[in-house]
């Protein structure tokens, strides 16, 4: 070896494999405005569609007059439910086993519901057209409050199913009832509560919010009459599933449907489902023979396509006087809006909400969820969380704080006392999950030491005294949250969407010069897959990440996969990538053994090639092996170097973390300042620490937005408020707190590279940390639970309800 031979460190560094803070390769185009999004797709002769929407929350549609609209210059067609009935598409199936109107069929069930689709030569003409469509409505009484949905005299919302006693998830108790889902041992839990020394019970609500990605939902549909083929460019988080759904409902052979997800400007769950816009654009293209584009505007996005949360959780915890939890009982009233369009795995009507025992060793628990219809937009998506996991984490983390307050115990101490212990993993929870790995005590202790938790509590005690003496009008809150996520859906034994098992996939093809292409069934919406997927391959097979092109989103070229949401990409596709890479490596080893004239077993892997054991100078690099694979493979071996893997995970992964938030609130104005936010995440093996940090920053910012302001609110008449960024709180850099990030590493024992997923943890763990900080600030004044969002006004209202607000004296 001469001096030019790179050192081991240099060889490692050149790969930019796992653990490297590799810069995001996709940012080269994004930061220069050179991304290619759906709205950048412009086809010759393309038409534009736009919706007439209902001003009413609940009304009968008496007549739709399209005559004037058809006279607007540029307007070519107005599609209504009647048109769609001719192709049997007035209604569409939802992912949750319900059906949903594509266009109002006789009645509207929420404000801004799609009533008619105007197709025109440009967007302006389409908008003029929708203003010229005359719709005659007969208003009906709206049902807004989910707690009144099952009242005996509640208005009937879904006339199509009002007499059906069974839904997709079992018996229905009322015409506005969708399902009841129960998990756990009711009798044992009742006993635990009867015997309990201490119990708490509180209604903890998680308000309706919206994922609000920067890019709204949109598509371009182009039907080729000659070939009978339909091409759809869309903002799809799960392009392959969309293609299958289209094949099933449009009755087109699947190979004649091409679904392409180009660059996507954020999804956060908003782009998992199928929306009327997609169906209408496809039908319009089939009818007109021209490509049709549909692009949602901001208000349409916030008020129609897929809200999140809207869970009302009555939470009870039983415990001993010493603070050992002995039972958990939760009843959820789930407001699903007008149609059950939740994007959950099919057998899970409340997602994985049964992770609600959290990080604690509950000997017994019982959960019941009732889903109901209301006159609100459908949805119920997983807004940057695994299915209903954010709701569950909020429920238990608020519950634990409320219990700590009742026991007069420090909330961190209560958590430490009840954590699942390291030696209990794999841990079987009372509600049926098998947690793969965790070390909660280490994470919590590290968090507490880093922020000087004891010092913060001392400061808080002093400031509370000062407040009581009238020396300050500021109160200080410390919010503790310790979450356990359940991500990586999922094992085919319990996870499917419309019968399609939730595996994921990867195809890797290396070319003779030692570079290659890798394709997956997932689809990045900003997560940086092009960067991290190549890093996994780099480490696994010793080809520099820069030499691997990652491609996703085209159903013609990518292997079938279930897409990206629920933090499933790394746990599922990430595993498929490693497994495909290992198949390549196995073949490479045979080629190397032949070339080096040794037995395969005499070779050992060394960063970027194979070395003969005990003979360090006998080495063959992967780059050379690629050449040999094509040009002189061993006799009897097929040339080429490629592999495919479809990965059906044996279990979910369970990332966790400890978050601490310190906040000061001015009671006179309700204005808060987040003084400090510390987030420790354990996502197992860390592929790219910089991307993890970016994901945590983004997720925490969303958590901050949700806890401190976001709300899609409906007034009593069912008018949707907060449907624009004026009112729907999207923090800017000015409002966003400074984030401190940290980590521990507890690899997943069942995942090929030990990675668990991280994208959603900060949203899941962040919301309770903020909310607990606000609640903790007020707790010494006798407050037990204040509902989110904790905006300035609500904080002031909380202070006022506690008698803390004085009016200025007039004389």
């Amino acid at each position, binding site marked *: 070896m001469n001096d030019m031979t790179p050192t081991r460190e240099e060889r490692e560094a050149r790969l930019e494999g796992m653990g490297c803070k590799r810069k995001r390769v996709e940012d080269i185009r994004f930061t220069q405005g050179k991304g290619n999004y759906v709205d950048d797709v412009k086809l010759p002769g393309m038409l534009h569609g736009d919706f007439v929407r209902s001003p009413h929350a609940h009304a009968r549609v008496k007549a739709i007059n399209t005559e004037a609209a058809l006279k607007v210059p540029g307007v070519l067609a107005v599609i209504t439910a009647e048109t769609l009935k001719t192709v049997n598409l007035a209604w569409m199936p939802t992912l949750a086993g319900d059906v949903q109107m594509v266009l109002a069929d006789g009645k509207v069930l929420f404000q801004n519901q799609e009533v008619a689709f105007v197709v025109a030569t440009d967007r302006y003409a389409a908008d003029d057209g929708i203003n010229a469509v005359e719709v005659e409505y007969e208003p009906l009484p709206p049902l807004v409050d989910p707690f009144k949905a099952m009242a005996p005299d509640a208005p009937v919302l879904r006339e199509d199913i009002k007499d059906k006693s069974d839904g997709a998830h079992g018996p229905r108790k009322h015409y506005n009832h969708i399902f009841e889902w129960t998990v756990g041992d009711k009798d044992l839990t009742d006993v635990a509560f009867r015997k309990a020394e201490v119990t708490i019970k509180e209604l903890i609500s998680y308000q309706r919010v919206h994922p609000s990605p920067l890019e709204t939902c949109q598509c371009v549909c182009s039907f080729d009459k000659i070939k009978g083929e339909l091409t759809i460019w869309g903002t799809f988080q799960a392009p392959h599933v969309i293609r299958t759904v289209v094949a099933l409902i449009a009755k087109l052979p699947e190979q004649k449907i091409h679904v392409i997800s180009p660059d996507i400007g954020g999804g956060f769950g908003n782009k998992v489902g199928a929306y009327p816009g997609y169906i209408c654009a496809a039908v319009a293209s089939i009818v007109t023979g021209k490509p049709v584009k549909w692009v949602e505007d901001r208000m349409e996005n916030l008020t129609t396509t897929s809200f999140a949360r809207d869970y009302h959780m009555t939470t009870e915890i039983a415990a001993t006087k010493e603070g050992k939890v002995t039972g958990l009982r939760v009843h959820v009233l789930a407001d699903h809006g007008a149609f059950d369009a939740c994007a959950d795995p099919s057998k899970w009507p409340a997602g994985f909400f049964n992770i609600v025992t959290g990080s604690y060793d509950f000997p017994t628990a019982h959960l019941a969820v009732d889903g109901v219809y209301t006159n609100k937009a459908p949805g119920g998506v997983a807004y940057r969380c695994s299915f209903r996991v954010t709701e569950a984490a909020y429920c238990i983390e608020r519950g634990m704080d409320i219990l700590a307050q009742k026991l007069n115990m420090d909330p961190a101490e209560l958590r430490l006392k009840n954590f699942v212990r390291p030696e209990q993993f794999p841990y079987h929870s009372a509600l049926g999950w098998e947690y793969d790995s965790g070390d909660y005590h280490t994470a919590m202790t590290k968090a507490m030491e880093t922020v000087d938790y004891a010092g913060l509590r001392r400061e808080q005690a002093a400031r509370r005294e000062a407040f009581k003496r009238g020396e300050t009008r500021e109160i200080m809150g410390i919010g503790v949250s310790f979450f356990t996520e359940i991500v990586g859906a999922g094992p085919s034994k319990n996870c499917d969407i419309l019968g399609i098992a939730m595996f994921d996939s990867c195809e890797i093809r290396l070319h003779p010069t030692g570079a290659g292409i890798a394709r997956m069934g997932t689809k990045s919406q900003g997560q940086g897959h092009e960067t991290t997927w190549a890093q996994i391959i780099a480490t696994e097979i010793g080809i520099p990440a820069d030499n691997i092109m990652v491609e996703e989103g085209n159903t013609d070229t990518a292997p079938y996969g279930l897409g990206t949401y629920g933090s499933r990409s790394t746990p599922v596709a990430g595993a498929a990538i490693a497994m495909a890479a290992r198949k390549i490596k196995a073949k490479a080893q045979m080629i190397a053994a032949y070339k080096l004239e040794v037995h395969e077993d005499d070779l050992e892997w060394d960063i970027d090639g194979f070395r003969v054991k005990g003979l360090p100078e006998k080495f063959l690099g992967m780059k050379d092996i690629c050449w040999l694979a094509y040009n002189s493979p061993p006799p009897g071996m097929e040339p080429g170097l490629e592999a495919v893997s479809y990965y059906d995970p044996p279990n979910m992964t369970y990332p966790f973390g400890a978050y601490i938030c310190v906040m000061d609130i001015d009671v006179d104005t309700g204005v808060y300042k987040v003084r400090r936010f510390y987030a420790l995440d354990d996502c197992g093996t860390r592929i790219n620490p910089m991307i993890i940090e970016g994901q945590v920053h983004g997720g925490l910012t969303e958590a901050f937005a949700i806890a401190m302001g976001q709300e899609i609110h409906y007034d009593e008449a069912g008018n949707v408020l907060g449907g624009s960024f004026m009112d729907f709180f999207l923090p800017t850099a000015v*409002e966003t707190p400074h984030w401190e990030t940290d980590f521990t590493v507890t690899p997943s024992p069942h995942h090929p590279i030990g990675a668990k997923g991280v994208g959603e943890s900060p949203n899941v763990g962040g919301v309770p940390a903020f909310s607990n900080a606000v609640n903790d600030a007020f707790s010494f004044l006798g407050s037990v639970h204040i509902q989110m969002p904790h905006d*300035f006004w609500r904080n002031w209202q909380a202070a006022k309800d506690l008698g803390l607000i004085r*009016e*200025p004296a*007039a004389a």
Partner: protein
Amino acid sequence: MIPGQFDYHRPASLAEAVHLMATLGEDARALAGGHSLIPMMKLRLATPAHLIDLGGIGALKGIRRDGDHIVIGATTTQHDLLASAPIAEALPVLQEASRLIADPQVRYLGTIGGNVANGDPGNDMPAVMMALGANYRLEGEGGAREVPAAEFYQGAYFTALEPGELLTAVVIPVPPAGHGFAYEKLKRKVGDYATAAAAVVLTMAGGRVATCRIGLTNLAEVPLLADAAAQAVIGTDLDDASLQRAAAAAMAIMQPAADGRGSPDYRRHVGGIMVQRALKRAAARAS
């Protein structure tokens, strides 16, 4: 979110603009920075048939001193105000208020004339103009007239502007050297209109308030001049009791709407607090 059809005019002189306004009548709207009007048009809450863009009229832009007044041309942007040395020296409260309006992008285009002529109770400049005792110069085919800011606002989006009239300038008496000023604005986030805001311009003599004017933003259908509140502090050293009296007097005239920013109770309460904070800060700045 797409505006309807309209015709676009870009006159080169004020006379031409006034003539267009007069002949096109109620169907015409002046277009300045467009940052209030165009959002309304996108929602089709405003559907003017004609837009008369004032951007091509050089005479409407600029800041000049006219004796003991400062005259600001209608199409002077909020950014221009922030960059102006004469404004920094004579009317620093305008810079404090401008900085609390929207964000830099909006301030590059949004104009002082548009901000005060718009008639939206959420606009920040009207209350500041009231506190400064400014007049607005209005011009139509029939000639020019001046209306005090304090008399200009009649209801939400209703002002003293007659059909066919344009607002050409705001005319502000230069406050005495050593005056104190403050604009206190509570908002939910950058770019938001006020939950409540108060503008104060005062002078002090011997540790006591000598003169004082208080304007209020977004606490009623129109911007408010809080006379009684100002009277409550004149002659005092702004002790706690006088501050409370001023707040109570200001709150008595507030009639805020319920919206996403809060309940009327809340907005009135924080309105009182904005008044007290603005008074204290203004007094601390006065010499």
